[in-house]
Each structure stands twice: as C-alpha cells, then as structure tokens.
C-alpha cells in the first residue's frame, strides 16, 4: 500500500509536465552553440564507452554469480590456488586491466582533442562583454574601444547569432560561476582574478543560465538570460542601450522620476541621463526592455515590479535591496516612470 500511495503522484506529475509549455533552455545535452556542441560530442563518446564497460563488467559479474556453485559456512575452503598458481585467471585479469588502460587512454585523447577544438574558436569580430558577479545578480558591461559606445546592463545578455562572444569574468564579492549550458560549460568568477570564456550562439533563441557556485543565501535565485538574435537585431538593441533614458512624457511618470531621484532608489541604481549614477544595484536605464527582474526570478510586469519594490525581502530574503515604504499612489507614479525606461 505504501508503494502504491507514493507512485501515483509520480505518474500524476509526469502527466502534468507533459501539458506544460516547453521549459526554458538550460540543458547541457542540447547544444545551440559550437562550444557546447564540441562538449556534447565528447559526452556522447564518453557515455558510449562507459556504458560499454559497465555492461561488460556487470555481465561478467552476473555470469560469475550464475556459474559459481553454492556453498555454506561449513564448506571447506578451496586452497588449491596456494599450491598451483592460477596462471589462466591471472592472465585474464591482466588482459582486462590492459583493456581498461586502453579505454582510459582513449578518454584522455578525446579530452585533449576537445580542449583543442574549444580553444580554436575564431575570434574575429567578437563581441566583448565584461560580466561581473554580485550577490545575487549579474552586471554586464559591453566593452568597446570607443568609450562612448560602451554601455552597462544587468541580468540579460543580448548576443548576435554567429558572432563569437568573449566574456571577461570578474566578481565583486564572493565566487560565482557563469553557466549557460546550451552554449558552453561553466567558468568561475573569482574575486581578485580574471577569467575569460569564449563561445558562439549558432541559433537564435533565449538561453537561460544560472550561477553554479554556491554564493550565499540566494544562490538559487541568480539566473541570467542570454538572448541570441540576428546581428542586425542585436546591433539595434545595442544602439538603444547606448542611449540615455528617454525623458518622461506624462505627469505621473515625471512624478515617478522625481520620486526615484529623491527616494532611496537612486542611492543604489543608475539611470543614465538622470542624476542617478550609483552602482550598488543593477543599472536600470533600460529596465523596461528586459524580460525579467530580480536576476531572472520574476517576470517583468507592473504587478511583479510593484510587489518587488514594496517588499523584496519577502520575495528574495536576504537580498541587499531594502523594503520601500511608499503610498500606493507614489508606487503607481514610480511604476509609470519605470515603464518608460525602454
């Protein structure tokens, strides 16, 4: 009865998941970029070899169990091996160990070739991004030799399909790890050290990544979206990001902007084109263009934004953003302003 009671919910859940829409892409087995594809190929080879070895050893083991006669504690021990060395058995064991060594050499070679392939990604015309880990969000600076063309965004990367991306990884506080499994393996972001990661998206899509190194309380709530889009679309997006925030058109939005600047918001956030230039929290210059807020945790709509601003501590306990006490009409004004930050 116990077993039946627990298995029915499993079946129920499996049925429920089938009806859901497709999950966000965060999967190491489905490559959408050349680097993840190289690793996926190594995975297939390694998995194949390991399954082969596993089957062979378990088969030998089961056969041994099947063929060996049974005994009990009174059965006199068989000491014949002490007088006559069991050469045939020793030879078999040695052969098996030799084969295992060959298999291991094959794995080593496959690993080295994959490492070489990963290191050979052509880097002409690359997009350079500096990604900085914070507890618990991502700051992205799009680098450019021309300082005026640089811009900063947060928690959502846009990249052009087919062009390589060089991400320079840094951290401002503790160790984080960038992992966007559909595009590439992971890389640590270690304070005091700089690492780079090179990858390319070969199909347009939204790829989800997540911090992979335990980084404190809200480690689970530190996601990143990577939007891979055709180059023209990417350039248009980048051009928008370079612009300062538009001036608010409505009265409500203007009141909201004043609230933003006079309230605690401006002490941590930047909105280019206003007096807000602090860098403690994510840059909000183009907040309204993002799909999510709170590092991939909540959809970016008025309702979620309102509850996030009012009480982030309930939604994401321990986050560095404080509770904001404001009147409902003030909150509406602020939301009206934030919606203009396209």
């Amino acid at each position, binding site marked *: 009865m116990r077993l039946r009671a627990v298995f029915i919910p*499993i079946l129920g859940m499996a049925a429920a998941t089938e009806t859901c829409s497709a999950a966000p892409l965060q999967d190491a087995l489905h490559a959408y970029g050349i680097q993840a594809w190289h690793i996926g190929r190594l*995975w297939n080879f390694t998995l194949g070899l390991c399954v082969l070895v596993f089957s062979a050893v378990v088969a030998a*083991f089961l056969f041994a169990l099947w063929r060996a006669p049974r005994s009990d504690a009174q059965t006199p021990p068989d000491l014949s091996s002490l007088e006559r060395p069991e050469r045939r058995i020793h030879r078999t064991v040695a052969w098996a160990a030799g084969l295992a060594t060959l298999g291991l050499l094959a794995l080593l070679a496959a690993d080295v070739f994959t490492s070489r392939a990963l290191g050979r990604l052509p880097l002409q015309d690359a997009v350079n991004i500096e990604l900085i880990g914070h507890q618990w969000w991502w700051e992205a600076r799009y680098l450019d030799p021309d300082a005026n063309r640089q811009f900063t965004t947060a928690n959502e990367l846009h990249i052009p399909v087919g062009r390589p991306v060089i991400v320079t990884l840094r951290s401002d506080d503790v160790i984080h790890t960038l992992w966007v499994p559909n595009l590439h393996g992971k890389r640590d972001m270690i304070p005091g050290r700089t690492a780079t990661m090179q990858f390319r998206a070969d199909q347009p899509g939204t790829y989800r990544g997540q911090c992979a190194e335990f980084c404190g309380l809200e*480690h689970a709530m530190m996601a990143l979206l990577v939007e891979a889009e055709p180059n023209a679309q990417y350039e248009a997006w980048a051009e928008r990001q370079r612009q300062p925030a538009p001036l608010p058109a409505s009265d409500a939005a203007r009141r909201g902007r004043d609230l933003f600047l006079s309230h605690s918001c401006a002490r941590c956030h930047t909105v280019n084109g206003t007096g807000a230039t602090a860098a403690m929290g994510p840059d909000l210059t183009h907040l309204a263009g993002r799909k999510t807020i709170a590092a991939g945790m909540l959809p970016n709509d008025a309702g979620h934004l309102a509850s996030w601003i009012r009480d982030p501590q309930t939604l994401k306990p321990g986050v560095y953003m404080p509770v904001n006490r404001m009147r409902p009409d003030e909150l509406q004004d602020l939301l009206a302003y934030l919606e203009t930050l396209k």
Partner: protein
Amino acid sequence: MTAPRLDAKDAAMLEQTWRDPPGLIGWFSAINHKTMSLRFMITTFVFFVLGGLLALAIRLQLAGPDGKIIGADLYSQLFTMHGSTMMFLFAVPVMQAVATYLVPLMIGARSVAFPRMNAFAYWIFTLGGIMLFVAFFLNVGPDAGWFAYVPLSSLQYSPTKRVDIWAQMITFTEMAGLMEAIVLITTILKMRAPGMTLNRMPLFVWAILATSFMVLFSMPAVMLGSTALITDRLVNTQFFNPLKGGDALLWQHLFWFFGHPEVYMIFIPPLGFISSIVATFARRPIVGYPAMVLSVVATAFLAFGLWVHHMFATNLPELGKTFFTAASLMIAIPTALQIFCWIATLWTGRLNLRTPLLFVLAFFVILLAGGLTGLMLASVSLDTQLHDSHFVVAHLHYVLMGGAVFPLFGAFYYWFPKFTGRMLNESLGRWNFWLFFIGFNLTFFPMHVLGLQGMPRRVYTYPAAMEWGSLNFAATVGSFMIAVSVLLFIVNVLRSRRHGELAGNDPWGAGTLEWSIPSPPPAGNFEMVPVVHARDPLWEAKRLPSHVTGLANDYREILVTSVADAKLDHRLWLPSSSLAPFVTALATTVLFVGSIFTPWAVVWAAVPVAAGATWWFWPKKDIVEQRTGSEISPYDVEVES
C-alpha cells in the same frame, strides 16, 4: 580452529588485567580498544543517522518546484551540516572506529598501540561533534558549504559565528583523525603476532595501513587551511583576502589537497571489507594478493595527485589541468584491477549468498557506475558542464554510498557476531538490503539527468517552468526508502543483540585470526598470543609453534615485533585505565570552543590542558619499579653452549 587456551585461573587474571574498571568513573576511564571502538562506531552511526535526517529535510524541500517547507537560510545550514557531518563525523571516522576494533584481532595483538591516546581521540571527536550539533540547534549551524569557500566564508560575507563553528569542528575531528592514524600505523607495523610478515597481512589491514598514512599526509592541509580561515576571521590575518595580497584559490588548493584524498580515505577501508567478505563467502583466498596490495598502495599514492579536478572551472592553466585529467583517469586502473580480481574470485569460488555478501555485490554495480561517472568528471571539457550540477551530487553518492556505505553495512552484518556474540537476523537483513539498493538508485540515478538538464547544486528551490519536478520527486521517494531501510537495520541490531542466534567463535567459516577467539572476545583478545604461518591461518594446516608463552597475565604486557618480518623484538607494558584522557579532552574542548570567541582562549585554556596532560603522563612509582624489575639485561642471560 580455536586458539590455544590458558587454564581458568590464568584466563581470569588476564581478563581482570585488561578489563575496564566498573562504575561511572570507570566508564569514563575506559581505554580497552574494543570498548572504545564500539562507542566510536555507535557515535559515528548516530551522526550518520543525524546526517541522514538532514538529507531527508533537504529532499522534502526539493520534492516539488517552488518548495516552501524550508527557507534559504535553514537550507544553507542543512546542506552544509549534511556534508560536514557525513564527511567529517561519519565516513572517515567510522572506518577508523571499525579498524581500531578489528586490526588488533586480525594481527593477533592484545590491544592497539597508545590505548590512552586512542581513548582521548574518541572523546575529542565526540565532543567536537556534539559542539557542531549544539550549534546547529542554537541556529548557529555552519552555512557556507562543507567546503567553506572563501570569500563567502570570510568575516565580511559570513559575519556570524557559524563559519567559526565549522572551522573548529574541523580542528576537533582532524585532531582525532590524526591520532587514530598514529595509533593504527603503530599497531600495524609494530604489534603484529610473530610470523605475520607484511606478506601475510590480511588485505583489510593493508587497506587500513594505506588509509592511515593518507590521513597523516592529507589532514594537515585542511587543518592549516581552517586555522588560517579562523585567524583571518578572528585576528584579522589576510591569508585569503585578494585585496591585501591573499588569494581565494589558496583555500581551494589546501582544502582539496585534503578533500580529494579524503574520498579515498573513505573508499580504501571498504576495499578491505570487501576482500575479507568475498574471500569468506566465496570459500577461497582472493585472486592475486600481491596485485591487490599494490593496487591499494598505488591508489593511496595517486590520490594525492588529483585535487585540481575539483577546480577545473577556475582559471588555472589549461595544460596543468590536462595533467590532472591524466592522473584522475590513471587512478581508475588500480581500482579496476581490484574489481577484476574480485570477480575472478567469485567466478572460481563457491558462493555462500548471505547478507554480508549481498551488500558487497551491490558495491560492484553502484561503485562501478560511480567510478565511470568519475571518469566523465575527470575530463576538463566535460567537467565544465557537469561540475557543480546535480550530476556531481549523483556521482559522489554513487561513489561514497556504493564504495563505502554498502560495504560498511556488509561489514556490520559480517562482524556483528564477533562484536556481540550473536547473529543479525537474515530476513530482516535482506529487507534492509533490497530497500536500500532500490531506494538508493531511485534517489540518486535521476540526479544524473537533473544535472545534465541544468540543475545546479545547493539551490534551495527551483522554478516549476524548469520541469525538474518529477525527477526530484522520485529522488525524494527513494530517500525515504533508504530511511525505512536504515530503520530496519536499527531494529535488527537492537533485536539481535539480545535475541539473535548465538554465533560461536566462527559462524562464517572464515580464515583470519579474529575468528579463532570467542565472540565477543575476552578483554585481552588472545589468551595465548598466536604465531602465524600463513595468510589465512585458520584455513591452512596448523604448524608449530602455535603460540607465544611468557607474556605476563597480571600486567598489560604486549609483544613488539619487527616492521617487515614480525620477528620478536621486545616486550612492552601498556598503560592502565585512566580518567586523564577524558579530562584532558574536556580541557582541550574548552580551549577549542573558547578560541571561537577570543584568541586569548589559546593562552589561558592551555593551563588546564597542560595540567590534564601532566596528570596523564605522571609516572607511578610502583609500576615503574615492577616494570624495571621485569626487565632482563642481556648481560644477565646465560648463554647456553
């Protein structure tokens, strides 16, 4: 075969000499290796159960998406406590605990070396474990992971005392571990019965010898690391602060230089269990004894060359990482060789399929799977996808549960009759086994898939949209099957201890020395110290001389033999029971716990520690006189012509 016996009067005197004193004070003064080992085993098992309960809480929280049972703060404490408990308070010490019971019996010794230090190590270990759990129940349980990576564990990002508790728990357990290693190495190298050359030593004893040397070389690294961490936090040193010239990666090197060998410290003793059990239940000696010994020794060496494969996602040089890939693949060779030798033994043996063998057979499937996923993690490129995902959670449990916990349960079923004199119930044993085996695979196999589907480790929840719910639910169901199985084991032990079938000296028809003496063994183990002529002395024809005469029955006198050939060297008196180890351990605890709060505790608490140790080592006049009186000068010996 039974061992030669003394007459009743001498046997009673021998028992009186080696027995622990009665009463409450006597209980705290006990130093007999079997008494201390049983306590040690029970203590580690309690920690195993506590760690398991923490894991059940984790599994409840992750059973479905957006779990609300446990908050982020408690969850961080739970997985940190689970990892720390299982690694530091269960897996390594339980092997030492079993070894301090079995090694003297297997090598024909009356005690372990340094029995008081052995008792001291037990008390230190227990007090450290109690400190950790008291802290957890006071809501200051460690929460920076069992690996406590800096800078997350630095004062800036972990301002409460939680990390200090963790660092001192390391000090306690590693101190105990180092002492046990010294006890075991000395026992094995200097106290073997005459004739038990290294070439005749049981494979279990070889495994413990290799493990103990590993403890000796690896534990100082993590003690150094945790001490540097606590001084960073307490007295503002800057070992790990990159802004002041320290380095965050230094911690990872120190931690994993210990942490990777630790896996093999957990895994090698069970190789010894398996060799003992397979030989007995296949009714023949293990195929390839020299290969088995060399494999264990090679594993112990190679284990020190792998630690960087925990750091493949860092920015260390790629060429260097390839070296560690090669080393990580290479260590599979000795393990494969041992597996092949065991399969050959089963192939050519006659099998007695009892519960101990069942648990060992599960090892072949589970550890093999865990070892193969380990090969996947050894590759730098693959590891960048698999590292820190649930795939690693699956891998490490396949290795540690399959490689250590299953053989350990088998070992309990095997040696329980020796510990208690009674057999464990066989049908409960089978339920125990099958629930464990199925529950284990149901819990951990889905985690491979979850990791590949992108689920990271150490997340307290996950969104429903990720579709990780059903596999996680299966894992939770499996974890409760394991819990039921462990409960059955406890019931079996409690029932069989009183009502089990009587075992006699040798219920399994085994070949090693521990089965030649009564179950449970008398306080002095061997009434007559045996002389060994073969690897399986109980299986092979008896040869003379069969035993040693002339050792005192009224003092704790033992034989010391030479390292390689176990030739008679000299006689030694071991110390008697004393309360001093316990009192000194209490004083040391005051020092360690005090230094969580103030560095000055190291100064003022040194006084009671020194007082305890002085009392411990203070020579007693009558014993010194008796001992010198029993000495024979070479000049006094009449040379027979």
